């Protein structure tokens, strides 16, 4: 994802009505989170920069850095705690979250955003492993579902730290209360480094979450109503941990607009999953 350093030219204290901001930008580089698996969907390890090639809008790029499992993770959880998530479903969510946080490594951070009609941040991004457990134990599902607002907030939290960010979104329902529209969050997905893995119950048909997962290089997981959420949560974390992080400085491509990305690996049978592109400018 292109990171732009933005300088606001207007002086502090200038009234907003009079303010005509000037922006200057410079490109730091593009980061692409890539999952490479073999024919059995097991992560392929030990690849180096020489094994990857990348095209930005069809133009081959020089890869600066490929890292694997070296960077600590920011694991954001955005959970639907609306009225439909009561009883067994909430218990499953608590158990799955406990299983997930137990798998975090030293240096990893976690955050919890909850949403019903109200979006909340009971656990800001931190190394505190107990916060998520305590927050879910205190939770009382209520009201409607502001799914899009909750995802928007979750992505903002994920972007707040320079580390690799995973956002796991759990919802068993439909959006019934959001203010932010889906197009704005999808556009955010095109401009963000956060990789989104939604988990929904079967039958929810969450087009928005599926599209967001695809745009960010994540994957939608649909579970049975009584399905094992713990296994799903652990599998997502494991998959994310075994992804490569590729960095390059784009050359010979216009800065603005949509950049189609093609990531290739010179291993036969290898399957590559990465975001399909990014929004520049």
């Amino acid at each position, binding site marked *: 994802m292109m990171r732009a350093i933005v300088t606001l030219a207007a002086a502090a204290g200038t009234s907003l*009505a009079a303010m005509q901001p000037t922006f200057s*930008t410079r490109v730091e580089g593009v980061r692409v989170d890539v999952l490479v698996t073999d024919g059995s969907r097991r992560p392929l390890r030990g690849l180096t920069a020489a094994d990857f090639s990348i095209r930005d809008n069809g133009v081959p790029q020089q890869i600066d850095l490929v890292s694997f499992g070296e960077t600590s993770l920011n694991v954001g959880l955005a959970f639907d705690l609306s009225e*439909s998530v009561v009883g067994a479903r909430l218990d499953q969510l608590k158990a799955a979250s406990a299983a997930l946080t137990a798998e975090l490594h030293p240096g990893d951070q976690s955050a919890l955003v909850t949403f019903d009609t109200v979006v909340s941040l009971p656990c800001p991004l931190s190394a505190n492993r107990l916060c998520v457990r305590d927050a879910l134990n205190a939770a009382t599902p209520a009201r409607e*579902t502001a799914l899009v607002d909750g995802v928007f907030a979750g992505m*903002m939290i994920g972007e707040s730290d320079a580390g690799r960010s995973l956002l796991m979104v759990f919802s068993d*329902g439909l959006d019934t209360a959001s203010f932010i529209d889906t197009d704005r969050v999808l556009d955010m997905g095109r401009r963000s480094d956060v990789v989104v893995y939604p988990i929904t119950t079967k039958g*929810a048909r969450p087009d928005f979450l599926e599209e967001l997962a695809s745009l960010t290089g994540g994957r939608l997981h649909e579970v049975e109503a009584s399905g094992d959420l713990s296994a799903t949560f652990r599998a997502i974390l494991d998959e994310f941990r075994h992804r490569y992080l590729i960095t390059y400085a784009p050359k010979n491509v216009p800065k603005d607009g949509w950049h189609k990305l093609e990531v290739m690996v010179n291993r036969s049978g290898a399957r590559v999953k990465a975001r399909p592109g990014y929004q520049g400018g």
Partner: protein
Amino acid sequence: MRLAAVALAVVLSEAPNERAMSMLRDWVRFVDEHTAGETDAALDSLTAWTYNDLELLLGYVEALTEVPLNIPVRGIRKRQINDFDLAEIKARTKDLQVRGDFDRFRKRAVILHTDAAILGAAPVVVAAPVADKSRPPWRRGEPEPRVDVKSLDGRVESFERANPNWQYSMGLVESLPAAPRRDRFVAQWYRAVGAYFAKERNYADAIGHFERAQLVVPDDPLVLYGEACLQETLGAPRIQNYVRVTTLPNGLVIRGVSLPQTHLRRAESLLRKALAADSHFVEANLRLGRVLTQLQRHEEALPYLQAAIADSQDRTVTYYAHLFSGDAALALGRLPDSRLSYEIAVALYPDSQASRLGLAAAFRAAGDRPAALATLERTLVKPPASREGDDPWWDYYFGDAANVDRLIEELREPLRSRQP
């Protein structure tokens, strides 16, 4: 939330005339004895009748109060009454006309059934009915009864029979003289009950309610506004998402909900009509601005939102107008304007979630992620239980519902007693 499922066949049984005529006599007594807005003996007796009883009686009440036969089913119901009973009903109508203000009697009858629907027993829950494929598809204007789908947070909870008291009220309202001009009570009733449906999220009854209003009071700006609010809600994600994923059993389908653009364009047309009647109708300007932003016509939306800001004396309406102006400006890439609008909305309701989400989006679009996060965090860190009422946005789709108690009281008050 209640939406209407497919209409069921009307159950026509042998009319037990004595029973119907006896009920009709009781019904007249209930109208006379009921005190508007109170759960009194008359109301209790009426609500003790089953829905089947009420369906049996409906044609008799329509004949007695001279409800116009402008819907085919009303004619069918009347033809099922035998001549002997019809003659007696006609004599009773004359008695009512002679004894005093017949229109007042009819209005009090409207109030009786409106009260029965609002204050009476809980809806009748039924098993999911089976769609009758041998019947022709449902058409607008077809008679009740129908079955409503009640859902909670996107999940089907139960099926309920539509409350026949609304059908009574609607017919009785139409029995009031239409010429030389409609009684003011008619538009007042359509507005108040529309607001009640919005408050109850009873979209099933609201759809039929406003379909009828289009024919009966087509030019009343407040009724037009009420329907526009309904159409805006039907086009919103909360309804569209539900309808998109909900599969009902037994071949049932949800009716009355079309594509979002269809509802939004309908809302636009209704609001323009309301504004043609009253160009300073603040809420209509606000809603038209919002509808146009939803239709991606942001530039066109802004003058309506600005008009609402200029004319509004209400903090909540002003908040909405700035909030939606922020959206329109953001969509147009006018980041300073967008930020300013959202900041005014934040100033009006400092802990409102929607305004802070919008402002965060504006900061983020300008590349200032730390400011975006700081804006949002202030509201996110408050415990959810302490945030009830923080944001008017959470009530936006209830439309006129905030006024419902006043509107219903304004209906009841002049009709509280039998005599003026």
